[in-house]
């Protein structure tokens, strides 16, 4: 057994052993709490006296209980029982982002989003944005009625005015993000029939226009291909954050995580190379990561092409980068895994994408890991069309424009020009759900429903259809945009029957009794798949009774011009002193959901920063300019790109490529709602353009001036540190794992008199306590560190499920965030802890490990023994229970918790004006609709922590009892595990030998004893030496890297 000799650190402070940090590292809070006499005004004792009196007075006054009403339905809907949740299959669509979902409703209110396991695309996974979208439904900033020129107007008047205005408008444009819905496209076609001058302009906020153009050149199809990462043994990504934000991250994470699973019958895993400037979530998961500048991206792809071409016997291309790390290694691995590999690039430059296509073609990946025939529809935007539209509008040649659920003034690089041009457009309409940067400037606002109030469909991939159904009646006087378009086109404006009408063509009379049965079945499943490309569909309904459509597996041949692409790259890629790489954050994305406090407070998985965007700089840059960062506090800088300059706080990011800086888009909203406004800076205007494409890489003209202003970013990364305790993270490399599945595991021993020879035994063998018996269930959780990508979807799912409050930026700085579930991110390097030079070097490109951390439900829980009022106790099912009403807030338990997972309510976060702008789900009647009625909203002064979703356990057990059976494995699942797109978390009953968890952990004896013998060699308990015997076990991280 080889013990882990790496050094792990959570932040720069810990790496450099900052004296200020070390001083308080063992404390929960960085500063002393104010003690008696230090408080302003009355002392603490006076306060206690006053409080005692007021409590007495309040309880006397409360003797008379208020009258409470019980109001039943007038006419109870048939399939709705108060107290019983209903699930509806639906579809989340945000621009081109897609996820098939189940919506959990209680008494007619959507309260939680779950993944839809029936979907072949998202396969039951979701991400943070999807999870949080249910809160956006109850956003008070949503437009509550239609507007004309800023004043409310009725829908009838709006329809009449818009209709007549459009008739005389002349040239009309419909501006939109990618539309996945075939029926919506049909609606637009009907609109165009009524207004023949209307043209559709599609743009994407995260443009992949370069990819579309390259595929047009290479294969004659301007599409996003369907990637299958699950079939790839070697994955090479050039700046594509496919696990976090690139195109379809949920789908890719599902596929990718399959290749990262290890077990007795699967001893191989994929190898992942990443070449990128910023440390992205995907880069953090890569086996080999090379930091490169944006200006090296194109040349690096060329270098890889040349290396592969040499093996394939094809000709070289000029313009290759010299000396990029890992290129040759990647080329060798790719060549060895021909047909089972995948190269992707996040670049928006068609030349680079053609080059990538050429590499995949040489490797024979088309038809295997890449499907260009049954392609995806996630991105359809055309940057050139959009640029042309803005130019035309500026010239005054556009008479009418309809913004269909998009906000280009904010999220298009030329937004400012568009804002100016809008004054020259005679009639402008927006269907935006709120007053945003664009709808603020238009004549008419015709607010669309939230997707949870809407009917719709989507075709994310050829042959895969998906339905959206309303799960609540309209909260406000809004109307579906499709209905609006239909009524302006003078059509029968009922989108529901329109939708059914357009689905008639999919109805196959040989399989379903009638259309209604077919429709109901699609609606129940949420998805419907059909064979064959869309073009043959119209024929299906006529001919299907006779013969099924057979699709030939043809592989289009690559027709891209590699030498041209190489020449373009050689010409275009010239680096500057500092290069700027703009990126999207996992939570906020393009900023559409910026007014969602759950997403704002979600710590970015890599930087662990909340509520802000910032300029990520390398340690080398910090050394040069002499800036230092402590707990997120650093200088601001003035970032100048061409003529534009903005002041932005700085965050020193290990792994940032030297000579580059990174800045997230999606922040700096000027009009979005109280939560979002004034947070961060808007960087869309900084993105450049190359060959007519929006470019998120700015290679020249960037300069940075360090300002003397300081700013503290609310970062959670150094909170709750484990000090120098070893073996929190346990990892190994694949070759060692194959030899010894328990490699990388630490087996701590503790000194005792029991073992006479060594005075050391395993910590599990010694205990002060009698232990517990679990005759019924024994709930447990296993977390595979190798699958976990750190995407933080679980953090938001937990927040939604368990009514976890949002505390706001200031309280995060005070280390008082409330998340029950956090993702600990560790950097590591091979250098020894006292090798300062070595560590500094390693910090330039560290390895990263993500570790989800929540209450470990210890069998010998240290919190339980110190509570003076027994407010935290142990259950007969292995759970560590927390009783809010018994808790008196001594916080002894939090002090005594080895994992630092207990969170204290320092304030009353609900019904408190102080938090009204941050904790919107608990401070207005509208926001409160999202709360889970099965979970208590905690008040000030009590401790809380992960309950292992005990409400779900109780519900699942009751269902089983009602049916007179034991619970089936999978009936009960905790919120974090059910949302996980990587299937990294497995929840189950350790007493049930058939449960997935028992099998995964290879539990040998499913007895009533709390001590179960775990047969899985990779499984370990964090801080095993403490001897608390957690019910949450982790599986070691295995990196697929060669022996050093």
């Amino acid at each position: 057994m080889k013990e882990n000799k790496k050094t792990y650190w959570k932040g720069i402070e810990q790496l450099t052993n900052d004296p200020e940090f070390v001083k308080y590292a063992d404390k929960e809070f960085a500063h002393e709490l104010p003690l008696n006499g230090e408080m302003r005004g009355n002392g603490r004792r006076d306060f206690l006296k006053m409080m005692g009196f007021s409590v007495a007075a309040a309880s006397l006054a409360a003797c008379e209980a208020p009258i409470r009403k019980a109001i039943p339905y007038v006419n109870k809907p048939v399939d709705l029982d108060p107290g019983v949740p209903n699930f509806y299959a639906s579809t989340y669509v945000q621009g081109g982002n897609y996820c098939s979902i189940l919506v959990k409703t209680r008494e007619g209110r959507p309260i939680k989003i779950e993944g839809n396991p029936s979907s072949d695309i998202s396969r039951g996974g979701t991400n943070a944005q999807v999870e949080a979208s249910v809160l956006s439904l109850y956003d008070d900033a949503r437009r509550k009625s239609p507007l004309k020129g800023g004043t409310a107007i009725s829908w009838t008047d709006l329809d009449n005015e818009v209709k007549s205005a459009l008739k005389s408008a002349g040239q009309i444009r419909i501006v939109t993000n990618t539309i996945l819905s075939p029926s919506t496209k049909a609606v637009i076609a009907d609109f165009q029939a009524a207004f023949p001058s209307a043209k559709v302009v599609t743009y994407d906020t995260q443009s992949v226009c370069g990819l579309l153009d390259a595929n047009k050149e290479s294969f004659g199809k301007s599409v996003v291909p369907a990637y299958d990462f699950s079939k790839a043994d070697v994955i090479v990504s050039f700046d594509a954050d496919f696990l976090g934000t690139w195109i379809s991250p949920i789908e890719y994470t599902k596929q990718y995580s399959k290749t990262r699973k290890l077990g007795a019958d699967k001893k191989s895993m994929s190898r992942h190379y990443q070449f990128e400037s910023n440390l992205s979530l995907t880069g953090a998961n890569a086996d080999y990561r090379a930091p490169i500048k944006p200006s090296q991206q194109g040349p690096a792809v060329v270098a890889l092409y040349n290396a592969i071409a040499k093996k394939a016997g094809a000709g070289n291309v000029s313009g290759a980068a010299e000396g990029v790390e890992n290129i040759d290694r990647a080329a060798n691995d790719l060549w060895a895994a021909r047909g089972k590999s995948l190269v992707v690039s996040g670049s928006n430059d068609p030349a680079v994408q053609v080059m990538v296509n050429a590499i995949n073609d040489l490797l024979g990946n088309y038809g295997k890991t890449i499907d260009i025939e049954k392609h995806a529809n996630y991105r359809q935007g055309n940057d050139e069309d959009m640029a042309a539209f803005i130019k035309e509008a500026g010239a005054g040649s556009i008479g009418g424009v309809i913004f269909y659920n998009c906000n280009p003034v904010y999220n298009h690089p030329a937004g400012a020009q568009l804002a100016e041009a809008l004054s020259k457009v005679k009639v402008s309409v927006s269907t935006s759900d709120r007053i945003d940067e664009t709808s603020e400037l238009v004549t008419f606002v015709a607010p669309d429903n939230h997707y949870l109030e809407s009917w719709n469909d989507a075709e994310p991939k050829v042959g895969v259809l998906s339905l959206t159904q309303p799960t609540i009646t309209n909260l406000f006087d809004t109307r579906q945009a499709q209905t609006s378009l239909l009524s302006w086109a003078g059509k029968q404006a009922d989108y529901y029957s329109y939708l059914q009408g357009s689905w008639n063509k999919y109805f196959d009379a040989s399989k379903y009794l009638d259309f209604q049965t077919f429709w109901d079945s699609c609606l129940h499943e949420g998805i419907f798949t059909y064979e064959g490309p869309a073009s043959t569909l119209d024929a299906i309904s006529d001919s299907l009774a006779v013969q099924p459509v057979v699709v030939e597996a043809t592989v289009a041949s690559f027709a891209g011009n590699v030498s041209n692409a190489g020449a373009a790259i050689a010409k275009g890629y010239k680096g500057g002193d500092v290069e700027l790489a703009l990126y999207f954050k996992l939570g906020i994305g393009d900023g559409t959901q910026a007014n969602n406090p759950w997403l704002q407070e979600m710590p970015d998985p890599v930087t662990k920063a909340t509520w802000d965007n910032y300029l990520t700089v390398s340690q080398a840059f910090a050394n040069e300019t002499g800036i230092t960062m402590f707990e997120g506090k650093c200088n601001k800088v003035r970032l100048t790109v061409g003529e534009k300059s903005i002041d932005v706080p700085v965050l020193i990011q290990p792994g940032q490529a030297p000579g580059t800086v990174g800045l997230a888009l999606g922040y700096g909203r000027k009009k979005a709602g109280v939560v979002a406004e004034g947070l961060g800076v808007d960087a869309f205007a900084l993105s450049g353009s190359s060959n007519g494409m929006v470019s998120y890489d700015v290679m020249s003209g960037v300069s940075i001036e360090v300002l003397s202003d300081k700013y503290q970013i609310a970062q959670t990364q150094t909170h709750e540190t484990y000090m120098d305790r070893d073996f929190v993270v346990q990892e190994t490399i694949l070759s060692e794992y194959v030899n010894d599945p328990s490699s990388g595991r630490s087996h701590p021993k503790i000194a005792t008199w029991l073992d006479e020879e060594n005075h050391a035994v395993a910590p599990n063998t010694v205990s002060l306590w009698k232990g517990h018996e679990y005759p019924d269930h024994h709930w447990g959780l296993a977390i595979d560190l190798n699958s976990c990508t750190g995407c933080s979807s679980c953090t938001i799912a937990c927040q939604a499920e368990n009514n976890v409050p949002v505390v706001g930026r200031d309280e995060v700085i005070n280390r008082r965030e409330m998340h029950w579930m956090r993702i600990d991110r560790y950097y590591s390097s091979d250098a020894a802890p006292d090798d300062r030079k070595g560590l500094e070097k390693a910090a330039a490109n560290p390895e990263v490990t993500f570790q989800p951390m929540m209450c470990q439900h210890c069998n010998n829980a240290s919190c339980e023994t110190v509570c003076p009022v027994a407010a935290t106790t142990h259950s007969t099912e292995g759970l560590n229970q927390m009783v809010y009403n018994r808790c008196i807030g001594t916080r002894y338990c939090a002090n005594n918790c080895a994992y630092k997972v207990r969170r204290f309510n320092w304030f009353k976060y609900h019904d408190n004006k102080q938090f009204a702008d941050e904790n919107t789900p608990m401070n207005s009647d509208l926001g409160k609709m999202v709360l889970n009625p099965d979970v208590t909203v905690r008040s000030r002064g009590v401790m809380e922590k992960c309950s292992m979703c005990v409400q779900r356990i109780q519900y699942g057990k009751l269902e089983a009892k009602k049916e007179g059976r034991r619970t089936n494995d999978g009936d009960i699942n905790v919120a974090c595990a059910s949302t996980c797109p990587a299937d990294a978390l497995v929840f189950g009953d350790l007493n049930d030998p058939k449960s997935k968890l028992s099998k995964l952990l290879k539990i040998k004896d499913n007895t009533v004893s709390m001590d179960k013998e775990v047969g899985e060699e990779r499984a370990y308990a964090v801080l095993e030496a403490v001897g608390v015997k957690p019910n949450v076990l982790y599986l070691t991280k295995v990196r697929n890297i060669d022996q050093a």
Partner: protein
Amino acid sequence: MMSASVALAQGDVISEDATVIDAGKQLFDANCKTCHRIHEKNVGPALQDVYNRAPSVEWIREFVRNPTRVIQSGDQYANDLFNEYNIMMTAFPLEDEQIMSILAYVQDETKKGPAEVAVADTGTEAATQDAGPSGFMNAIMVGIVILLLLVLGILFLIMRVLKRYLQQQSEDLGEEDKELLGQTFSLSGTLTSKPVVFLTIFIITALVVKGVITGLFSIGVQMNYAPTQPIAYSHKLHAGQYQIDCNYCHTGVRKSRNANIPSANICMNCHSSILPDSPEIKKIKAAVDNDTPIEWIRIHNMPDLAYFSHAQHVEVGGVECQTCHGQIQEMDVVKQENLLTMGWCVDCHRKTEVNGKDNAYYDQLIEYHKGNGNEKMTVEDIGGLECAKCHY
């Protein structure tokens, strides 16, 4: 008559199979019992012997499924019924098989005849048994009191005899003894004596403290709370006299946490034809017509932090409604019969045996429990006192 005899051929034979009868009873209780009894008239006719009385079994099936159509078809028997009861029966979309099993139950009950005397149910039996030990204790107490009084009387007599004897011998006594002998009882002396003062103060203080504590514990406890409801609905009439199954109106009681206060449309199922002109019913009708829900006053208030599930107790545990809600079928105005405090819940969880019969969920637990040498498995034994069973 011809058609009737033909119809009476095969499938119309009323089964005497016990399982069919049992299924019929369940269907009867769920669907018919609201308006029909077997042996006496209720809202609708008594059903005994109906299979011989009605034109045919086929007719019964037709009528159950769509009474309106049968009456409108001019059927003599149906019209006579309608004129007699002046109520249109609700249509029940039941399968042939289901109706036949209900008839099987009706036939079985008809054969049994009306129950002679209501047999005392097990609940009262248990109560009588419970009275045993406590009555015994009372007898002992009374005996002791009588004994003590006797002793007191005897002591008093002895004292008087001794006193008289000493007075006769008064020459031999000293001064002190004489004073003692001549002492008369002084009330004020006794009252101001230290032990009495101390005892009085102690008792008063103890009573006040006890009163305060009891008072504090009763904060938020609304036992006997019986507010006036917006509609003068009587459980005594519906659940008591007409024996309508609780489940018929409280639809959630077997499937949800909430038993559900019935929605107005459930009331109107019957009341669209029964007493439609009563002022109380008119209020319900108004609620339905105006789509404004009825605002009942909530009587049984659980704090938000406690999660009580009706389904767990009624469906799984087989607990009777009366256990917590009192003799609800005798209440004209519903009141809160029990404390509904945590102590009250816990008390019951300590005493109550788990209803694990025919429920595979509990098999493993019962086996484990028996293995440990226990006979009775109470709710407490399987974690029924754990915090997170009710608080999360």
